[in-house]
């Protein structure tokens, strides 16, 4: 989280923000660039890779893996860590000289696929059969499977064991329905401590929507489905609990995100993904907590999936070698090595048992892969989602039907195109 705030400075004049960016990276050849023809040289290649690393552990692990592959195949790979991934990738695409391989976030995937920045290599992978279906769907744009999912995260319910015991609750009380979640969060609310502390936005609220059988867009992403009873009821459920005082948003608790409210004891429970492990180890080493699956809603269990894929640039001139490297990096063994190094979950179903054995405490996260849902995979939605999130910031006082209707009309004008 703090990484977000530490990006480098940009003291550029406004009129020139875009202009300078263009000129700064305009070095990729003349003004007349070739289109998107497939270009791959044979034999050894020099690959560049841009990653958004969570820390030294991740950087070292990726460097080690790529070096092993490079030594084996005679290619060379240069790994660069991006300070601001979105911006540096955009500069690469604009300059016609993007990195060959890069992390591509699921939320940005559709826009990039639409703009032709990505090379669709799904069918060229040596083995793409055992990636989780929901992850493959996430990286499919207009019926084409673009890129191999790198790893994934799901949301789970984190519970502070001390608060739990203090409230007189036992293992048998783990909430499995919305009613039970309300009940335990009420019991856990006392003094300075709120029952459930949440980050704002649809990246958390969406889980409730999935549990209620709803989603923000239709399955084929052709129309907006915000103003439906499923979505409305899910948001109303959270709103009621916020108004009641047993749920609260992180910003209300003077925290940057759910994990901070949880770690500082302002919230007895939170809903975050497996990244919370690293945050707790670093910032709140003494915290004793349990992870449970999210309680099921009226229509069944539901959670959200967050994932990235190994993107290959459409303008890369070493696509064949890049695909080979992706094959190497997404083997079960290599994914387990990454899991050991920096705690991500393998994107292959065949690695599931191995991972569950090594990390039994992550079983609730792994289980989420079965019923989780990826981000909204339609191009041009970034602005619409940002607007929705800003209106849901203050969910307690929000006019939910009104917000959802506005969302539908905003999303409709994007999806209709």
């Amino acid at each position: 989280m703090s990484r977000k705030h530490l990006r480098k400075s940009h003291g550029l004049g406004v009129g020139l923000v875009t202009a300078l960016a263009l000129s700064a990276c305009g070095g990729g050849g003349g003004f007349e660039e070739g289109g998107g023809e497939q270009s791959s040289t044979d034999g050894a290649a020099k690959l560049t890779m841009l990653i958004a690393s969570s820390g030294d552990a991740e950087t070292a692990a990726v460097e080690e893996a790529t070096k092993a592959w490079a030594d084996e195949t005679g290619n060379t790979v240069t790994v660069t860590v991006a300070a601001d991934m979105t911006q540096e990738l955009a500069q690469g695409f604009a300059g016609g000289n993007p990195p060959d391989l890069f992390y591509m976030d699921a939320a940005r995937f559709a826009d990039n696929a639409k703009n032709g920045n990505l090379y669709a290599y799904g069918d060229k992978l040596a083995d793409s059969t055992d990636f989780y279906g929901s992850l493959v769907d996430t990286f499919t744009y207009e019926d084409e499977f673009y890129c191999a999912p790198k790893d994934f995260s799901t949301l789970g319910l984190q519970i502070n064991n001390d608060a739990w015991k203090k409230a007189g609750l036992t293992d048998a009380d783990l909430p499995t329905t919305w009613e039970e979640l309300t009940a335990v969060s009420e019991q856990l609310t006392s003094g300075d401590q709120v029952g459930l502390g949440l980050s704002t936005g649809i990246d958390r609220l969406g889980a409730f929507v999935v549990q209620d059988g709803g989603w923000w867009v239709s399955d084929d992403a052709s129309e907006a489905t915000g103003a439906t009873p499923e979505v409305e009821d899910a948001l109303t459920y959270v709103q009621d609990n916020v108004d009641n005082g047993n749920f609260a948003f992180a910003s209300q608790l003077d925290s940057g995100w759910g994990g901070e409210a949880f770690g500082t004891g302002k919230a007895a429970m939170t809903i975050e993904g497996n990244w919370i492990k690293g945050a707790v180890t670093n910032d709140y080493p003494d915290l004793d907590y349990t992870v449970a699956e999210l309680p099921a809603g009226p229509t069944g269990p539901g959670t959200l999936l967050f994932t990235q894929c190994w993107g290959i640039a459409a303008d890369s001139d070493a696509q064949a070698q890049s695909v080979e490297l992706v094959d190497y990096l997404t083997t079960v063994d290599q994914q387990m090595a990454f899991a050991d190094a920096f705690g991500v979950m393998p994107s292959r179903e065949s690695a599931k048992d191995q991972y569950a054995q090594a990390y039994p405490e992550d079983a609730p996260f792994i289980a989420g892969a079965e019923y989780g849902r990826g981000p909204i995979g339609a191009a041009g939605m970034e602005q619409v989602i940002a607007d929705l999130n800003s209106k849901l910031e203050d969910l307690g006082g929000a006019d939910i039907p009104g917000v959802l209707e506005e969302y539908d009309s905003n999303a409709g004008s994007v999806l209709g195109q």
Partner: protein
Amino acid sequence: MTGEGRVTGSPRRPGGSGGAGGSGSSLQRQTRAGWLFVTPMIVILSLFLILPIGMALWVSVSDWTGRGSPFSSDVGFVGADNYTPLLVEEGLSRQDFMISMRNTFYYVLGVVPLQTVLALTLAVIVNQRFLKGRTFFRTAFYFPSVVSSVAISLVFLFLFTGTGAINQTLGLVGIDGPVWFSDARGLLHLAGDGLGLWSLDSPPDALTGTDVAGLSLWEWLAGPSVAMSAIMLQVVWTTAGTFMLMFIAALQNLSADVEEAAMVDGANRWGVFRYVVIPHLRPAILLVLTLGIIGTWQVFDQMYVMTQGGPAKTTLTPAYLSYQAAFNQQQWGQGAAIAFILFVLIFALTSIQRYVLRDKDESAIRKAAKRQRVAMSNERTGS
């Protein structure tokens, strides 16, 4: 630009053009040397300023998707298509753009006068001849301007948290401070609520019902949000030092004799300040206001580091929106269009402000002289 004018202009000094044969070739030589001297500057300016501006202008009227060169053959001209969603068409783009305009308008309205007055006050104080430790104060006041705005922004994030130093200080005097950077309530809304003009929970229908350019009057009249005010405080504090320096330079140009003469003529301290010092500072004030307006409309760093436009979009500014549109939404044309609208706006505002604050005596003299010339030439042709 100015360098070019100055050097190529110099050979046309009196005597240069009127000379015979020999001096003509020396004039040519001088012209050539002049061009030679300015060439590096012209190259640098065109490469890093004129060319990028031209590129951005083209991008703002093209359908470039951010891939490859914007001048390649598959990028098409779309006319004003990137501008209409921002200004005319109803939709999210216009709503966001208008919100950013509203936010920045209140931001400019708050920051520019405050920083000017504060800078002037500080300058007058540290310019006192009998003040002890003047150098120390000058350095202390100037210090924030030297520190990177990103570093300062990070410090302010901590100062303004719910349990931060600011709120603890407020707590000492019994004020329960807000969670600054997540408080989206507008100051004017709060003020109206406090004065009993309206209630925040049920704003008057006359205001919420009337839409102007995609935003209701109620939203237009929000004023800067609490989060934005915290940023404004920071900016005033950091920039006042820079402008103080400009005022000090101007103050030091005013010789003590003038002030003493005014004293002798019976002016008190306020009179001297109002009728001697302020008129003397007019060019400096003009400079500070111009730089202030240009700088504040372009505010970007603070939003990028601290708030990313939140809470509830109340710290969204055109500069940050332009960045977001281009890099996050891949709407490069629209991002460039926002930048150009902002450029036109700043240019217009600066021109208006220069016109309003022009030296009226001087322009009156100039006008009178012109009238006289015209009258004289009329007389001559008439006779």
